[in-house]
């Protein structure tokens, strides 16, 4: 029995220890999880639908040979490399610094305690060449702490503490210029090209009387400066100047030291920078139904037509108002609107000597932009006002563009009886207004059926050909002293005469 008791005690102890271990290591929980997982696996193996059933998944040896292992490996490697590169780039890319933040940091303030080590020179004791003192003083100079920059200890400071001036500047002006594009003098450490280290009458310790004057020292067309700046010249002597340059300074658009975009600009110069101020153009270029390819899809965007600094022409256009348009429209261009071809306007104007008045008197009437809005419009052909594309148009209830300048009476008066009304239209047979006859009919014709809105060989801008159903039919217009005749596709040759009526419309 004693033996039995010993055995029983040992078994009970073992059981206790076993349960304790079970509890400590969570064996039951792990075992439960294991059972659940195995159960899942067996269930899935039996019941789940697999993409690759075993019978489908059989590759012959030939197929195995066909698989280009090396190529796969290469592709895999390149994809990994690309990811690595992206990581490196992300690490290297500088944190975004806003331009105004930099400017705030630019002027460090000196505490007198900081300048204690430097020998203080009283303003009265400064060398004669600094007198009289100017409006703005560099703070170390104002404090008389010459030794911040200079080595010598007496009143006549000589050598600089470091050979490279820029290094001295950057000691206090800690913001290094880290953006994509740097101004060449700043990059080369030639701070002294623009700034005076002691004093100046201009804010920012500039060497010239104003910011613009300083810039123009190098960037003027007539400048004697022979560096790279000469290539990026600006002729500010021309009569039409961009307002921000005149009223404020070059720094309205450019940064003097460093910038994210080319030409030291804070935004993309082609368009975004301009639209930052020109809200009304932004509205047109982004939201209008029909957009001008010249602005929206061209290479230079706004700068395709405008000069951002100064030109001879109105609205800062690079060329004369018509010539600007013709610099692109000197060839057939595919239209963004309907994919059709726009005519070679330069050739059209050269071939046809009678021009529509806005083109003829471009300076007074506004040239092409009298009718077209170069920035975009909700009307087809970026017209400023609505017109019809159709040959037949019911003109009665519509407010068409032509009538902005031409009197509506031209088409609404049926008979022109008194000589007072004769100036309404010359297209009449006796008293019968032939415009009325053509336009107010059941099938009223559009003005463009007979008139070319740009230029023509004939007087009154009569077309040589009218487009009807894709076929060009000639109008065969002949002008006589008191009338004329037409023989288009629409009717046989009809003659009209203002003095001796031929009886049209009766």
């Amino acid at each position: 029995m004693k033996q039995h008791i010993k055995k029983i005690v040992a078994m009970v102890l073992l059981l206790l220890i076993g349960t304790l271990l079970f509890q400590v290591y969570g064996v039951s929980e792990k075992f439960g999880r294991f059972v659940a997982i195995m159960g899942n696996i067996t269930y899935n193996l039996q019941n789940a639908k697999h993409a690759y059933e075993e019978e489908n998944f059989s590759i012959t040896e030939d197929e195995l040979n066909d698989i280009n292992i090396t190529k796969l490996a290469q592709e895999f490697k390149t994809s990994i490399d690309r990811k690595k590169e992206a990581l490196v780039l992300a690490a290297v890319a500088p944190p975004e610094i806003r331009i105004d933040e930099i400017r705030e940091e630019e002027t460090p303030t000196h505490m007198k305690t900081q300048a204690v080590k430097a020998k203080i020179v009283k303003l009265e004791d400064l060398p004669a060449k600094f007198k009289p003192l100017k409006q703005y003083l560099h703070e170390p100079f104002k404090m008389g702490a010459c030794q911040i920059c200079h080595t010598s200890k007496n009143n006549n400071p000589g050598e600089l503490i470091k050979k490279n001036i820029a290094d001295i500047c950057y000691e206090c002006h800690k913001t290094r210029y880290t953006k994509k594009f740097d101004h060449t003098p700043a990059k080369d450490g030639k701070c002294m090209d623009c700034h005076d280290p002691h004093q100046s009458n201009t804010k920012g310790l500039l060497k010239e009387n104003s910011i613009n004057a300083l810039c123009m020292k190098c960037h003027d067309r007539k400048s004697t400066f022979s560096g790279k700046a000469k290539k990026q010249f600006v002729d500010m002597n021309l009569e039409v100047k961009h307002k921000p340059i005149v009223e404020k300074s070059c720094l309205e658009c450019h940064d003097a030291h460093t910038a994210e975009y080319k030409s030291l600009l804070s935004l993309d110069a082609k368009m975004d920078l301009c639209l930052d101020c020109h809200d009304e153009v932004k509205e047109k270029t982004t939201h209008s139904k029909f957009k001008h390819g010249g602005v929206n899809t061209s290479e230079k965007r706004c700068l395709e037509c405008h000069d951002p600094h100064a030109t001879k022409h109105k609205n800062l256009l690079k060329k004369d108002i018509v010539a600007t348009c013709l610099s692109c429209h000197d060839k057939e261009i595919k239209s963004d609107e309907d994919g059709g071809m726009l005519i070679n306007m330069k050739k059209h104007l050269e071939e046809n000597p009678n021009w529509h008045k806005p083109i003829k008197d471009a300076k007074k009437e506004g040239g092409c932009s009298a009718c077209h809005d170069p920035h975009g419009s909700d009307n087809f052909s970026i017209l400023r006002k609505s017109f019809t594309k159709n040959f037949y148009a019911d003109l009665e209830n519509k407010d068409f563009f032509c009538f902005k300048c031409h009197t509506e009476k031209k088409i609404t008066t049926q008979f022109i009886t008194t000589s007072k009304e004769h100036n309404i239209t010359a297209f009449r047979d006796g008293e019968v207004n032939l415009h009325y006859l053509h336009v107010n009919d059941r099938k009223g014709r559009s003005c463009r059926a007979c008139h070319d809105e740009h230029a023509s060989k004939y007087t009154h801008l009569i077309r040589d050909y009218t487009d009807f159903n894709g076929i060009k039919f000639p109008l065969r217009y002949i002008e006589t002293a008191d009338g004329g005749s037409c023989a288009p596709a629409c009717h046989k040759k009809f003659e009209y005469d203002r003095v001796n009526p031929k009886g049209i419309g009766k």
Partner: protein
Amino acid sequence: MKPTHFFLTVVIFLWGGSFHMLQADTVMTVLSPLDNSLQTELSMNVVVKIKENGIDTMTIDTPLEQITLDLNSSETMKCQNILLRLGENTISIRAYKNQVMLNENTRHIYVSSQLYHEYKFPPEIYKQNFFHNDSNEAKCVKCHNMKANETKGVAFMDVKKSNCYLCHKNIVKEKYAHAPAANWLCISCHDLKSVKESKYGTLSPVNQTCFKCHEENQELWNSSKYHHEPLDSGRCNKCHNPHSSPYSMFVRKPVNEICLGCHKGQNTRAMQSKISACGASYGRLCIDCHTPHASNQPFFLKKTPNKAIK
């Protein structure tokens, strides 16, 4: 005189006579038209080859007119446009020298029309002959440029510059001329490949050619419920003359005549009945109430019946 001698003299005389006839035959040859030709146009060109100094006057007798042509001695070719009537036409072309008739040629031409029952089915001997093939054109090429010289999509500023104009100018002489015809844009319909026998045939049925320009009509008519037979069979040219016509919309005859030509029963009804809404006898047109192409209303009425009759 021995009988044999007499016989020989007769033979010689007859032989000589036949020689004379042979000679006369070469004085004038009619190149066009061929005998027993069939056509639908009411005019045609007569082309005659003449022996130099052979004749001085030529007459052409048609059922409608008699044309006398005085010829220059140097002329070797003569083209003349003549007018025809519907049905059979007998054309006599006679050649004279010093008022003596040397030769006579007769041509039978049939002008058919789909609008008249009696001219709808020409006798079988008449066959359609196409002129514009290489062998025929070779005969004309000495004087005429036989190539179509139009620029696609651009009409002639001066229609006389069209090579087609000179021979075919009569087809647009009527008051209402179809714009492509009046501007001599022939190739736009007379496709170069439509017909094997001719260079300038047209597609048959013609409607595909018409709908190239009049596409909005096609859309409208296709969407309509009821279609008139000529529209469905695609023969627009049954009622319309694609070149020119004295009547508006280029119809071949006054509207009522066209309609009543087929709808014979309506003819007597419309003419006699005084209470007929159609009132064809009161100077109204069939198309005042009916649309000739397609309609969503029964009887091709323009509006619902009650409204149309009011």
